[in-house]
């Protein structure tokens, strides 16, 4: 399966592990939150990176004390209409200061992709039946943004008032 980063397909380095599967040696694995809770200590003994996946009713606050040991948080979109994980991504970035990778998994649709990047999600696993080129196209559809979300996109408001970073440094 491929993952998309900034619209570009990448090989997936991560293995999503079933709760009863043994982690393959040396692989970067994503475990469920339940498994993380139950086996935190033994999982940390491994020498490879660990990711934890959260269901859409599991707030990232559950991971608040563990985030420095988690290299990836996978947020699940069980249905594309379930938008809780958009807020979870912001909680991870803005409130918990998480700097690791945030990945969206499940029903992640092309028309949500830009929103996902804007709230702080890095990578997505598009559903297998979807045309991946569409996701890259979706990122080119807008050049104007109204909400500041701590991503790198300048808002209309800042551009209007010359508060954008490039003008500010050019003026300096």
């Amino acid at each position, binding site marked *: 399966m491929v993952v998309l980063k900034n619209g570009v397909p990448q090989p997936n380095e991560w293995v999503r592990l079933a709760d009863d599967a043994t982690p393959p040696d040396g692989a970067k694995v994503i475990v469920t939150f339940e498994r993380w809770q139950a086996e935190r200590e033994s999982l940390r003994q491994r020498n490879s990176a660990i990711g934890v996946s959260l269901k859409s009713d599991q707030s990232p606050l559950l991971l608040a004390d563990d985030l420095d040991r988690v290299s990836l948080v996978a947020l699940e979109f069980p249905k594309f*209409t*379930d938008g809780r994980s958009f807020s979870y991504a*912001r909680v991870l970035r803005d409130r918990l200061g998480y700097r690791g990778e945030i990945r969206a998994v499940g029903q992640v649709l092309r028309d949500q992709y830009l929103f996902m990047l804007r709230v702080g999600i890095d990578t997505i696993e598009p559903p297998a039946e979807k045309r991946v080129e569409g996701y890259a196209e979706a990122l080119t559809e807008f050049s104007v943004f109204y909400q500041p979300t701590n991503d790198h996109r300048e808002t209309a*408001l800042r551009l209007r008032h010359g508060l954008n970073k490039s003008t500010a440094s050019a003026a300096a």
Partner: protein
Amino acid sequence: MYRYDQFDATFVRERTEQFRGQVARRLAGELTEEEFRPLRLKNGLYLQLHAYMLRVAIPYGELSSTQMRKLAFIARRYDKGYGHFTTRQNIQYNWPRLDDVPDLLAHLAEVEMHAIQTSGNCIRNVTADHLAGVTPDEVDDPRVWGEIIRQWSTLHPEFSYLPRKFKIVVIGTETDRAAMRTHDIGLKIVRNDAGEMGFAFYTGGGQGRTPIIGPLVKAFVAKEDLLSYLDATLRVYNMHGRRDNIYKARIKILVQSLGAEEFGRQVEEEWLRIKDTVLKLPEAEVARIRSYFAPPTYENLPAYIPEFEAKKSADPDFGRWVRANTDVHKVDGYIAVSISLKPVGAAPGDMTADQMDVMADLSDAYSFGEIRVTHRQNLVLPNVRKQDLFDLWTRLKAVSLDEPNIGFVSDIIACPGLDYCNLANARSIPVAQRLSRRFSDAKRLSDIGELRLNISGCINACGHHHVGHIGILGVDKKGEEFYQVTLGGSSAEDISIGKILGPAFSYDQITDAIETVIDTYLDQRTGPSERFIDTYRRIGIEPFKEKVYGGSKERRPAAE
């Protein structure tokens, strides 16, 4: 009026092109109907009983004459020559074809309009007091804040897949003309003890099957914190609102289940974390937006215009229309004029393309080219010189837009009902039409006085029946249309939810039943200055029950 700058214009063009692509992908089978549905809804496109319906946003209910002409053009080209103004200050077209919609949206974009977020589980088009900027005693102009909220909420990356739709309204006076506390967030512009301007947040109101009067969650939010407090509120709702049952998914259910105080505490906790970050509103942006709403150049006129006063007594029809259809203006010599879209026997809120063009011309001639839409499905020319009023009225008369019934029993709010809507139990529009024929006499109407009558075709309450002084709700009894009556609701500053009168009436009984209710009021009132709602509050529901269900021999024979 707000004008798009390069950013807004680019954005709306990009949005239109995006939707063009989505329609193409749908027609090519690349998107399933299930996947397309939320995309089209966020562009205002519904699938109704017979066809698609497009709902066009009229942010905070304000239109220019140019925009009105474009709405007329669209009505002719893409609909059957009319449009329908809604309780959310929007306009709906009932017959567009899917493959025409991208072009239709491109036409709208030319006049700085769109259909973004007029539907779907997102932050809907923001509404406001229709007398914004012209009514006396306003703390501040709600349109300024409506525009700020419009921009902040437009394609919000975090809040576009909420548990349910989300409606925000802004008012700037104690008097509530916009049903503020029936919204997910009702914002009232207020001053604190230090004299600073800010917002009272009434969060978690709503209608639908569970009508709830929005509780005051925070009495004062400073103006620079408006967006951060909105953000915090929406974040708490997005994470904790119910998603297992659409009837329990509105924020009102979350606020009720936590209690307003605990809900407010959770929002406060989130807000304190973010309030001093990127969402703080710079004064320069508020000033930029405010400059678009600067008052037009009013003339220096006396408050008392003798020729106008003389005309009112010389022509009683004119006098009656002035009394019913105008509101006080903050500037001497000017007046705000309501144009009723409820002529006798019409479908409430409907307007023909020709009438729209006339409205555009009249607003250019008499009101600085500005028009408002009210949540009671009427229009307003906000800035008319008193001395022009007679000419305006004469020209309105020529196109049947002179109905003198604003605020009276025939100024009915009605939802589309069974004639258009696939959720309906019963027709709403024909009931409204029958009632408006029964109460067509202008003298009788003004004698009855202020009376808000609202009709919904099912419990979703699009027609605001819970908060009508008299509410009519379509119910289904063994496959037959029946109508339940509620009394004592109000959506104004004295807000209340109506109480059920008793067993429902058939389609043929409902007009008589309402007439009996009104006759009972006329018998019981202390005098003409006691409004229906005041009499009801004084005497309660029993006397009405007795008359309506007790003495059927007293009922007048149906006039139809």
